[in-house]
């Protein structure tokens, strides 16, 4: 029987030749991830095993990125618990403030993700690493605890949807617009329990940061994972970051997909998801006059160097609208330094934006940019649920860095095509 790329990775890690959709397997993991919100619960569960050591001190990553730098005493207590566990268990990949970055940008950058890996993380956006040809998926804290103890996790083998991409993205249209378009098309449960496999000649034109963004939001369509084939772009990134030899899995030519969607990238428009679901999408041409109070550029979805370059290109030599609080947060220290070297941070500050240390803070209404009642934000983040960025009566509009930067200048949700260079 033929298999998809995701199924092949699962089969290899379950030490079987073949898996079929719906089959329950126990599989060996290459990496287990937790953050400062999910790890404390996992650490309590881990204690129930009554064992001293984790399965492999080199295959666990602990990243205090959500409510850090510690936003309050309770958050500080949670981070302390995680730090003490990391030292006690001799976890090699614990990232203290200073080395810390937003987990899903940090792990690939630090070379912890390889093509062909099977990775779970107690964070729903763990699906990001599919950009490098890994099978990665979000789980809860109990799964994380069990994985830290055993190095294994149970999986129900997913069926798959195929997204066949052709053409090239137009100027000012990015991977964010593509994934918002797809979620708008199939809905927030359109890929429930399934893999989203991205293929076709159009893939070659997507840079690695676009691919991270696309896989990152697979969960917003309910998917188990999102994944790209391993091509030259992925190999180049892996070569620069990961010391291991890439393990390349390819879908069989006759692999079965529940459905194939053909998308011509050239036809896409800048796309915005209106409150309060990521599938509530409109193209920029259908947005109308939406006055905004805040712009957030960053996150595990869009805090990478390409995202910052696009935003800087629009903001260069201009001033943000004085009624718009514009917050830029590079996703990792390395990206922060690179943005500094390229002069991007200066452009942001001169435009009247603030630049934050890496943190997940504003995306989930944690800290560093909470909305008041009735306020609206354009954010390059991934969720616009009720109360996501603050008050339950506030609103989040999801968009690309280009749309977010253009909106910061005008004070309304704006088309980057309309901004004069």
């Amino acid at each position: 029987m033929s298999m998809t790329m995701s199924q092949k990775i699962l089969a290899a890690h379950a030490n079987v030749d073949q898996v079929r959709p719906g089959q329950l397997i126990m599989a060996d993991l290459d990496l287990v991830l937790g953050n400062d919100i999910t790890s404390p619960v996992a650490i309590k569960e881990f204690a129930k095993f009554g064992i001293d050591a984790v399965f492999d001190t080199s295959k666990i990553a602990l990243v205090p990125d959500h409510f850090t730098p510690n936003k309050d005493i309770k958050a500080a207590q949670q981070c302390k618990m995680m730090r003490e566990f990391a030292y006690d268990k001799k976890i090699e990949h614990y990232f203290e403030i200073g080395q810390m970055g937003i987990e899903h940008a940090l792990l690939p950058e630090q070379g912890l993700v390889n093509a062909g890996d099977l990775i779970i993380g107690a964070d729903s956006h763990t699906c990001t690493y599919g950009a490098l040809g890994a099978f990665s998926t979000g789980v809860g804290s109990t799964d994380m605890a069990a994985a830290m103890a055993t190095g294994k996790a149970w999986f129900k083998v997913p069926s798959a949807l195929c997204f066949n991409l052709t053409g090239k993205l137009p100027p000012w249209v990015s991977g964010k617009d593509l994934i918002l378009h797809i979620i708008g098309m199939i809905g927030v449960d359109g890929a429930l329990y399934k893999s989203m496999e991205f293929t076709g000649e159009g893939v070659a034109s997507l840079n690695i940061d676009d691919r991270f963004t696309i896989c990152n939001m697979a969960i917003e369509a309910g998917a188990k994972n999102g994944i790209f084939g391993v091509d030259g772009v992925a190999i180049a990134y892996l070569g620069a970051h990961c010391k291991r030899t890439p393990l390349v899995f390819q879908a069989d030519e006759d692999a079965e997909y529940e459905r194939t969607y053909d998308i011509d990238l050239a036809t896409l428009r800048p796309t915005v998801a209106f409150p309060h679901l990521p599938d509530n999408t409109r193209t920029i041409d259908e947005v109308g006059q939406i006055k905004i109070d805040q712009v957030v550029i960053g996150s595990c979805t869009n805090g990478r160097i390409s995202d910052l370059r696009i935003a800087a290109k629009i903001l260069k030599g201009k001033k943000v609208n004085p009624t718009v609080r514009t917050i830029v947060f590079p996703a990792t220290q390395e990206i922060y330094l690179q943005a500094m070297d390229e002069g991007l941070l200066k452009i942001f500050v001169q435009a009247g934006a603030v630049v934050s240390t890496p943190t997940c803070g504003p995306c989930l209404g944690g800290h560093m940019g909470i909305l008041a009642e009735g306020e609206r934000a354009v954010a390059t983040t991934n969720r616009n649920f009720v109360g996501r960025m603050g008050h339950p009566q506030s609103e989040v509009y999801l968009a690309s860095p280009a749309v977010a930067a253009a909106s910061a200048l005008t004070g309304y949700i704006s088309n980057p095509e309309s901004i004069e260079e």
Partner: protein
Amino acid sequence: MKAQGKAFRYGENVDTDVIIPARYLNTSDAKELASHCMEDLDATFVKKVQLGDIIVAERNFGCGSSREHAPLAIKTAGISCVIASSFARIFYRNAINIGLPIMECEAAVAGIKMGDNVSVEFTKGVITNETTGERWSAEPFPPFIQKMISADGLIQYLQQEVLL
């Protein structure tokens, strides 16, 4: 094993941010989490909920974040079962892993209103609206998951069955 209680009836795509808003995730204390359960969707939930009550919701319940705090808050608030047309996958996994009973049954969801008295027989997968007398059969769990539930969660299952 049986659950019985008053139904709290909600719509589709009830996400983990309304089940337990992130502003409360600076703790993992179950009781404290439970005191804010469903706050941004139904501020009266915490005041009204009684031990044994049942949440009934439409498709994609628990979408969004991987926070296990969501099923934990629901369980600790006293909810004995969540019945939904479908569940988001991480929530589904988390509920099973922590021992919060869940049932997928679209027909039952359509036949239950806010405040109805509902009972669930887990072993048979039978859901009854005691207020109207209507009865439905839900899909039973696969044997692997049934074993996990009878072992009282993932950790205990792994200790007993496989790995250590």
